């Protein structure tokens, strides 16, 4: 974690401010602090305890993507159903942070619209209706059977007696409220559209309350089933998970492990694994690029799909097809190319088709995700590269270094090229030479310069503005110094770096647990980081490992405030 207090002060002086004390004539009125009523003695924050569990929400709303998968699995229909939902603001780089997911404003009505449309679609189709109903007459017995079995799947737990009674009563109002003439369909429509608007459907509620002897609350079988299914497959539990929950297997570590391994070995984890990497590596930045048409005639903004495609294909191949780990993600010497991207790789267009083919790169040419066209192009300008953007990306996302944004009021324009300032490296070095810039730029610049062997569209080059390249550099991290001759050298060292392993583990924890990491996660993160040193440690094993800590199987007691 970098701190730049000195830089802030220097900046104030740079702008010629003559006073650091702002409040000459108008003192700020103090706000009366409100002291809470003291009640019980304060408990230690469980998020600070070793192998503890931080405070957190007990109502985790489904993300829009999870909503779509869930209704599709539940009803047999639902693709595109979340398309018009009010956008969620993203938090901490991942869109599934549970604290940030709320229902407010128009979203409640969006859910209503979707629920009504989906329910209509189900009762309008013989096939879909038969899928939802266990029986086919509008009697109280059948209604009860339907509410019980459908409700179990919709709420992802058995319904209580009172809940069953409510929904059976609602079912009976079908003929009066829907009036289609078919009592069974009417009752089913009402039940389905209401359950889809229920907080029991829209949130994964963790409502267990009994504390164990150590001050934590073990989750019950169904709560664990939902955690497993959403963490691994972004959807509701499947039949086998429901069976295991009903049999009480998910309150034992063996039972959890068995289910986790089953799911992790299946194709069902593919969406989550790809989505994690897509968000971690910010693949959406590959859209809407624009490059100078004269300098880069092969480029078009439509290439965005190919950039994203090659990155996803690479991640999929490494992590799922080959079962390799972080080392390969960063430094495997191959990539995926098609006829549209071939020119940028210096390859013959005629040897490729529309689909991606695996290409082995010649020695030391390219390796891993950081030499993909998308990363190199997205962090570059229309005509030139941007070592600063590339450096900041690697520091923030691969190394988890907290690099702040540039200070305010700074002119971000690089100096013009001259006889002395020839290459992009020259321009950046001149512009960031001031000592106040060094705290951050001594880290940013060398890493960015390492990639100068690739131009603004990701093609390899050996000169810049007629001058030879200088891609060598070194950076001092908290875990040691990285010294490198260029991109491939840097990439190899990153793939072996303790900091990088720790960062990848932390990013996965944030995504898998839908929250920021806490002090109590330290042991889990350290164990993962150690495993990741072995390239054979695949993402499947990592996901299973994340089901083992107490933070997965228990929750913290409710925060009193």
């Amino acid at each position: 974690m970098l701190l730049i207090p000195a830089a802030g002060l220097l900046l104030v002086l740079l702008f010629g401010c003559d006073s650091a004390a702002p409040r000459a004539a108008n003192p700020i009125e103090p706000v009366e602090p409100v002291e809470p009523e003291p009640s019980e003695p304060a408990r230690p924050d469980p998020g600070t305890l070793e192998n503890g569990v931080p405070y957190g929400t007990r109502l985790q709303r489904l993300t829009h993507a999870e909503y779509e998968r869930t209704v599709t699995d539940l009803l047999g229909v639902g693709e595109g159903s979340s398309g018009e939902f009010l956008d969620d603001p993203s938090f901490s780089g991942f869109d599934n942070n549970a604290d940030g997911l709320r229902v407010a404003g128009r979203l409640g009505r969006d859910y209503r619209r979707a629920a009504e449309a989906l329910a209509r679609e189900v009762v309008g189709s013989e096939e879909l209706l038969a899928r939802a109903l266990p029986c086919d007459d509008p009697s109280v017995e059948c209604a009860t059977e339907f509410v019980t079995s459908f409700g179990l799947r919709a709420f992802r737990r058995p319904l209580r007696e009172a809940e069953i009674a409510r929904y059976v009563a609602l079912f009976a109002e079908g003929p009066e409220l829907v009036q289609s003439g078919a009592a069974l369909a009417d009752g089913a429509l009402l039940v389905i559209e209401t359950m889809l608007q229920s907080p029991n459907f829209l949130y994964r509620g963790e409502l267990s309350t009994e504390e164990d002897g150590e001050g934590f609350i073990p989750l019950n079988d169904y709560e664990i089933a939902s955690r497993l299914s959403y963490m691994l497959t972004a959807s509701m539990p499947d039949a086998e998970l429901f069976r295991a929950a009903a049999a009480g297997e998910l309150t034992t570590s063996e039972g959890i492990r068995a289910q986790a391994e089953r799911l992790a070995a299946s194709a069902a984890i593919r969406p989550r694994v790809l989505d994690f990497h897509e968000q971690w590596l910010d693949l959406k930045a590959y859209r809407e690029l624009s490059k100078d048409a004269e300098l880069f005639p092969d480029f078009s903004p439509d290439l965005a799909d190919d950039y994203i495609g090659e990155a996803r294909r690479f991640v999929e191949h490494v992590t799922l097809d080959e079962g390799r780990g972080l080392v390969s993600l960063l430094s495997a010497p191959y990539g995926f190319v098609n006829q549209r991207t071939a020119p940028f790789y210096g390859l013959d267009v005629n040897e490729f088709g529309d689909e991606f083919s695996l290409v082995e790169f010649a020695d030391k040419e390219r390796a891993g995700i950081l030499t993909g066209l998308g990363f190199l192009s997205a962090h570059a300008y229309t005509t030139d590269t941007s070592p600063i953007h590339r450096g900041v990306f690697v520091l923030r996302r691969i190394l988890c270094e907290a690099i702040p944004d540039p200070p305010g009021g700074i002119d971000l324009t690089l100096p013009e090229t001259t006889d002395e300032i020839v290459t992009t490296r020259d321009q950046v070095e001149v512009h960031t030479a001031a000592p106040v810039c060094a705290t951050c730029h001594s880290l940013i610049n060398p890493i960015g310069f390492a990639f100068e062997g690739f131009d603004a569209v990701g093609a390899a080059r050996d000169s810049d503005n007629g001058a030879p390249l200088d891609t060598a550099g070194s950076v001092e991290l908290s875990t040691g110094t990285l010294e490198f001759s260029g991109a491939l050298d840097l990439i190899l060292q990153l793939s072996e770096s303790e900091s990088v392993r720790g960062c990848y583990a932390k990013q996965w924890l944030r995504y898998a647990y839908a929250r920021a990491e806490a002090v109590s996660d330290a042991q889990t993160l350290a164990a993962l980081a150690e495993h990741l040193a072995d390239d054979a440690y695949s993402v499947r094993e990592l996901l299973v490992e994340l089901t083992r800590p107490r933070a997965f199987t228990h929750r913290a007691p409710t925060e009193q405030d």
Partner: protein
Amino acid sequence: MHRHTQTVFGRRWFLRGALGATVGLPFLESLAPRSARAQALTPPKRFLCFFNCNGVNMKRFFPSSFGALTPESFVGTALEPLSAFAPRSLIPRGIHAVPRGYNLDGGAGDDHAKGMGHKLTAQFLADTPDEYALGISVDQAIANAVNPQGRQALTLRVGRKKDGVLGHISYTGPQEPVTGENNPWLAYQDFMGLGTEAGESVIPDAEALRRRSVLDLVNREFDDLRSADLSRSDQQKIEAHFDSIRDVEVSLAASVGCNLGAATEADLLAFETVNVDSDSEFARLTRLQIDVIALSLACDHTRSATLQIGNGAGGPIFTWDGMHHKYNHHKLSHGTTLDDGGDEVQGYEQMLFDIDTWHMKQFAYLLTRLDAYQEGDGTSVLDNSVIVYANELSDGRAHDFKDLPWIIVGGAGYFKQGEYVQVTEYDPMRGIEAPHNKLLTMFMNAVGIPTTNFGGEKSLAGEFELLKA
């Protein structure tokens, strides 16, 4: 027991309109009064912020001299489209943002982030990758206090969704940003209580009854959750969720006659939601959002609203209304071909002036709509509202937080009218003397919520006496 917002203005205000409104404006039937008492109420006060990004061309925005404003005052400036409203406008100069930019007050975020996040909250930003503001925004605070049913403020936007602080201006609480709705058809459908069948102007009674049954059951499920021992944050989550679906409680007979008319409704329906993010729809979307937001204020669906046009450090490439730009708003605000660097764009200052003028045409359109709705006591909705033009920055090139552009129209009887005022010449680089949070405080007071100091640590108590009526 769930929170039920008791407000001074508890009763819903129903619009009484003149028969046969003028061409181009919605036709308002005279509503049958619900009771004799309803007619005796005075119209509620409303608040609306029309928010632009990336600053303005400061050299050609303002009138040339301080003092009384007449329609001639705006000629030759970007404000010219507002000329008809000059006598009802108040333009203060010299007000700066708090917390201040240029790292003077510290805090997270670069100057674009601060420009967006501080503007309606006057709070610092969180030290996280998203940098969301650390407090409630004035529009939501107003909504909490005065909106029918405690409904959230209406938050609309035009333009691509942008993550993080640069894409949001409205907050229901610390780090609780509200993403603006960018679909005018859904917003309209929502508060009109329209049926799900396209073109239905009122929900059939059967559908309304069905929805009430559904809501009753769901509310009992919320009650189960309310009685669980949830944290305060989870309790708030439930209440916000419930508020989001309580609209069915309102008798829908009130909506009859309060609509945009068949022609605009057809436009809304025809709107291509698939292109809602593209620049080609930007102008049309702005107009439709203005139609919807003005109606929602007039029909008392909400008394607080914001319309965010574009994003901080973003914005469309303007290719309409005589403009044929090649670079987007942010780049032009720097006068460069790239977002951080590149070559100078020839004639960028004229381009910015054209952009500012176009935005003022939209602002004028909004004011015209609001002024056309008669409250039945001789006043218009505009008379009873505080309609505010605000911008993320003043001079976009310098990311300047000082001497921000503000235009306050309508004034609701609280603000002076028809004046261009120098509030102060004090240099904000030296200290905090004319902080914009005082304006936020005045907005609260103007709509009837007694407030002495709206904002956070760097806010100052009090108001700008020079601006008061």
